[in-house]
């Protein structure tokens, strides 16, 4: 049976490769001119992970669940609750 650390390392490598492939593949595949991007520039489509406007439930998912991190934030550390 494959041990959990091995699975975790495998997943990390897989995700890193997928990220690089997506970054390379997406770059330049769609070019929407700046004057037609007013909808995607709207603040309603923005998602903040740190600061006053980060969703309140993010504090709960960081401190009251075993699975934190992602979206540019560390998983754990910085708080006695973790």
């Amino acid at each position, binding site marked *: 049976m494959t041990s959990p650390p091995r699975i975790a390392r495998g997943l990390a490598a897989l995700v890193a490769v997928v990220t690089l492939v997506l970054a390379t593949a997406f770059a330049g595949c769609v070019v929407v001119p700046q004057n037609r991007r007013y909808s*995607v520039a709207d603040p309603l489509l923005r998602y903040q992970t740190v600061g006053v406007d980060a969703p309140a439930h993010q504090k709960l998912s960081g401190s009251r*669940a075993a*699975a*934190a991190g992602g979206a540019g934030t560390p998983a754990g550390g910085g708080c006695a609750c973790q």
Partner: protein
Amino acid sequence: MTSTPALLTLLLTVATSTAPPYEIESVRLRYTQFHQTGLGYQSAAGPPGAPGSEWARVEQPQAEVTARLGERITERVWIPVDVVTAASPDHSRYGRPYDAVDTVTTASRSTPSGTVDTFTTYHWDRVTDFTMRAAFHSEEPFESWIVGLGASRSFAEDNTVVGVSANQILDWFDHFSLDGNRHGRATRSTTNVNVDVTQVLSQTTLANFSYGGTIQVGTLGNTWSSVQLADGSRGEERLPGHRLRNAATGRVAQWLPWNGALTLSYRAYLDSWGIAAHSSEGTLAQRLPAGLTLRANYRIHWQSAPGFFTIAGDPAGLGFRTSDSDLGRLHAQTFGGALLLDLPLARRARDLHVDIGYERYLRSDNLRVDVTTCAVGFRF
């Protein structure tokens, strides 16, 4: 001494150079209250052999100021303060023979904690930004230092943005045994790297993919959580000294033709303790007349437990063990809503922002958290 004139020249240059213009861009104040009820096996605040109380309340005022220094630097200073009641299990309320860490730290009664978090963005050129994060967190038995560096670059006329960042966190805290004795200080190191890709898919659709890898080394528990043992007594929690954590998130945001927006996201998580998790979240926002916006959100989270999770540990066992309900197999749902008001102003400030919101977090082990929040802010 040739170095003395050089030093004097440098000091003179620094003293006579003018600071870049300093301009406040926005000021935000928020107040949030978390009210938690439920039972967990790591808490000794209950009858022998049964889970203890996890009742707690957190009052969280926050302030955030964003300023621009000259043409290239943007600085954000964020100060959240948490006042936590019952941060650790209060045995004394239930007449337990020992009072655990409460007698030493008073953490059960009230623990104020605060963070100063600064985030600086340097605009290198039209497509490249460099970022730096520096933060300090303090609470009664705990201090934490956080530093981070990052870079982002946009491609294809800003249709694609690729970012990378790294963070290092050092935690330094009191180490307690369950009888309330203090055994010096413990440390924990958290090293984190992130990769992030944002892509414009169409005139109304935005996609984002991110991966975060984190390695933690040191004392990974809070040292006062107890473990329920098979004979009805309680023992100390024992956790591995390292943990590798992986989280990958995909998000799609769609602008809706009736002045609204829909955001959907999925996150997969796996760590070296054998915990796997899946989280999905949806947010629907709708602009209304008079500067109002109505927002509703729903999130579901499922996680598995590590192999050493137990609610009936072997009293003579020497291996890893935890009864922490946060590490248990569970699913959790969060749903909520918010009303936001953005009003343009004619004088001094560009606009006023006010919002009020409520969220409820419900877990399959009966933990429940009610979150109420409100904010006021100005953009200049």
